[in-house]
C-alpha cells in the first residue's frame, strides 16, 4: 500500500501542475479526464472488486447532477450543493443496493441499467422542480476570469478524483476490499466463511455511488445547464466500464489509467471523425472486449471467475 500511495502522490502532484500549461483546451480535457476517472474508479468498487456488473453509474451521475443543480437554484453555495449531491447519491445507492444486489448476473445488470431510465423519466415529469424536458439553468458562476473559472473546476474535479482514489486505496488494502474480492470469487463460499455479503455488497455499491453523485453535481455547476438525457446517459455507465476494462479491473491504478487512455483515444476521434463518433466508439469497445478483456495493466491477472455456460 505504501508503494501505491507514493506513486499516487507523485502522479497527482504532476496532474495538479496541468493548469500551468496555460491553454484552456488542456484544462478542459484534464477536467473531463478527472471526471471520468472518478466514474471509473467508482465503478471499480462494485464491478471490479465485487464482480457485480453494475450499469448504475448513469443513474448516480444524473441524480447527483440534478440534486446539486436544484440545491444551487435554491440558494445553496456550490460546495454544499456538491456535498448534498454526494449524500443523496449515497442514500440512494444504499436503498437501491439493498433492493437490487439480491439479483445476480444479467438480471442485476439490466435492473441497474433500467434505473437510470426510470430516474430520467421521473425527472422529466417533475417539471416544477427540475424544469423537466426543458432543462435546468444553474446560477452562472461569477469568477475573476474565464481562465480562473476553468482552473477552479479543474481543481474541483481534481480534489474529487484524489478523494476517490484515496477511498480506492483504503478499500483495496482493508478487510472491506478483501471481502469484496472473496465475493467476486465465490459469493456463497464467502458467505460460509463468515462474510456478511449483504453488508459488503451494499457498501461497495454505496462507494460506487457517492463520488459519482458529487461528480455529477460538479459537472452541472461547470456547464450550468443540464437536461435529463444529458446526465442520465447510459454512455456514462458504459464508458466507465470500458475504461476499467482497459486499465485492468480490480486494480488500484487501472481505472484512472484506463480513463486517460480511453479519453485520449476518443479526443483523437472526435476531432477527426465527428460523424462516425459513436460508431468508432463502438468499434473501440468491440476491439477492447475481444482482444484485451483483461486490460492493459494486468494482462496476466485473471479477470475474475469465468463461469462456463449453463
Amino acid at each position, binding site marked *: 500500500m505504501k508503494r501505491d500511495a507514493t506513486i499516487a502522490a507523485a502522479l497527482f502532484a504532476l496532474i495538479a501542475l496541468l493548469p500551468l500549461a496555460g491553454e484552456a483546451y488542456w484544462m478542459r480535457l484534464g477536467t473531463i479526464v478527472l471526471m471520468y476517472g472518478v466514474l471509473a474508479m467508482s465503478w471499480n468498487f462494485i464491478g471490479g472488486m465485487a464482480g457485480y456488473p453494475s450499469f448504475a453509474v448513469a443513474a448516480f451521475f444524473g441524480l447527483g447532477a440534478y440534486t446539486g443543480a436544484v440545491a444551487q437554484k435554491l440558494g445553496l453555495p456550490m460546495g454544499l450543493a456538491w456535498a448534498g449531491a454526494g449524500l443523496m447519491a449515497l442514500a440512494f445507492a444504499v436503498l437501491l443496493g439493498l433492493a437490487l444486489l439480491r439479483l445476480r448476473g*444479467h438480471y442485476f445488470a439490466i435492473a441497474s441499467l433500467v434505473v437510470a431510465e426510470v430516474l430520467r423519466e421521473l425527472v422529466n415529469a417533475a417539471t416544477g422542480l427540475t424544469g423537466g424536458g426543458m432543462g435546468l439553468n444553474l446560477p452562472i458562476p461569477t469568477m475573476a476570469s474565464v481562465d480562473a473559472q476553468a482552473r477552479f473546476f479543474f481543481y474541483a474535479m481534481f480534489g474529487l478524483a484524489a478523494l476517490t482514489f484515496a477511498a480506492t486505496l483504503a478499500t483495496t488494502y482493508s478487510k472491506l476490499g478483501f471481502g469484496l474480492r472473496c465475493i467476486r470469487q465465490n459469493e456463497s463460499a464467502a458467505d460460509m466463511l463468515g462474510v456478511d455479503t449483504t453488508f459488503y455488497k451494499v457498501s461497495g455499491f454505496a462507494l460506487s455511488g457517492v463520488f459519482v453523485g458529487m461528480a455529477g453535481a460538479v459537472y452541472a455547476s461547470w456547464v450550468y445547464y443540464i437536461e435529463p438525457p444529458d446526465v442520465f446517459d447510459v454512455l456514462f455507465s458504459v464508458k466507465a466500464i470500458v475504461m476499467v476494462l482497459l486499465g485492468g479491473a480490480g486494480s488500484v491504478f487501472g481505472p484512472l489509467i484506463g480513463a486517460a487512455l480511453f479519453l485520449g483515444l476518443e479526443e483523437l476521434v472526435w476531432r477527426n471523425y465527428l460523424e462516425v463518433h*459513436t460508431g468508432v466508439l*463502438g468499434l473501440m469497445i468491440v476491439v477492447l*472486449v*475481444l482482444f484485451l478483456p483483461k486490460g492493459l495493466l494486468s494482462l496476466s491477472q485473471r479477470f475474475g471467475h469465468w463461469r462456463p455456460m449453463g
Partner: protein
Amino acid sequence: MLTLQILANGLVLGGLYACIASGFSLVWGVLNVINILHGSFIVLGGYLAYFAYVTAGVHPFLSILIAIPAFFVLGYALQRLMINRIIAAPVLLTLTLTFGLDLMLSNGMILAFTADFKKLVLDPPLGTIAFGAVVLPIDRLAAMLLALALTGMLYLILSRSRIGRAIVAVRMDREAAALMGVDVKRIYAATFGLGAMMAGASGPLLVMIFPISPLGGPAYLGKAFVICVLGGLGSVPGAMIGGLVLGVVESFGSLWFGPEHAITLSFSLLILMLLFRPHGLLGRKGYE
C-alpha cells in the same frame, strides 16, 4: 365498451411484442447472451422494408420473406465470428460487446438513413374492421397475425426440426449435448441467427404501425427485456405470455397515465418483477 377496445388493442400489440421478444428470449436463454443489437436489428429490418416499399413498391409482407434468410445469415455470421469468442466470459463482457456493436450499427443507420423518423404508410390504406363494439385497423391486425405466424414458426422449428431439438438440448445441458455429438458452436450460431431473424422479420411489421428511427433500438430492447422477465427465459410460450401481458398493460397504462409514460410503466413493471418474481410469471428458471 371502452375496456374491451383497449383490451383488444393491447392484445394486438401483444402479439407483435411476442414476436420481437421470442428471438431475444431464445438467445438469452440458450447462449446466456443479452443481445443489445436485437432492437437495432428490428429497426434495420424496418428501414429496409420502408425503402423497399418507397423505392420499388415491394410490399412489406414480402420484405419479411426476404428478411428471414438475410437476417439469419447476418446473425449466424456475427455470432460465429465475434460473439462466440467470448461466449464463456462474464456477463459484463458479452453485454459490453453487443453494446459496442450496437453503437456501430446505429451510427451506420444514421449515416445511411438519416435520423428522421420514418413510417411506412400503405397505399391504398387497408382500412379498419369491426368486431362488434371493437374496431381494429386491418394493417395492425394483419401485422399481429403475421407476428403470431412468425412466432409459431419459431416454435415449430424448436420443437420439430433437428436443429431446433439440438438447440433445446444445448439449452438444457450444454455438456451433455456436446457428448451426444451436437456441434455446440454451430448451434450457438444458429440460435443467434434465429434471434436475428425474428428481429429483422418483425421490422417490416412494426414500421407499418410505428414510426422508426435509427436510435429506436433501445426502446424495443427495453420491451424485450420486460417481456423476458415477465414470461421467463428461453421459451416461446413464455415470450407469448409476456408479450400479451405487456401489450395489455401498456394499452391500459396509456389510457390511465398517458402514452408518454408507457416506457416508465413498463420499466417499473420490470423492476417489480425482478425484485419479486425474477423467474417470470410462469416461474420458469432461466439463466442468471
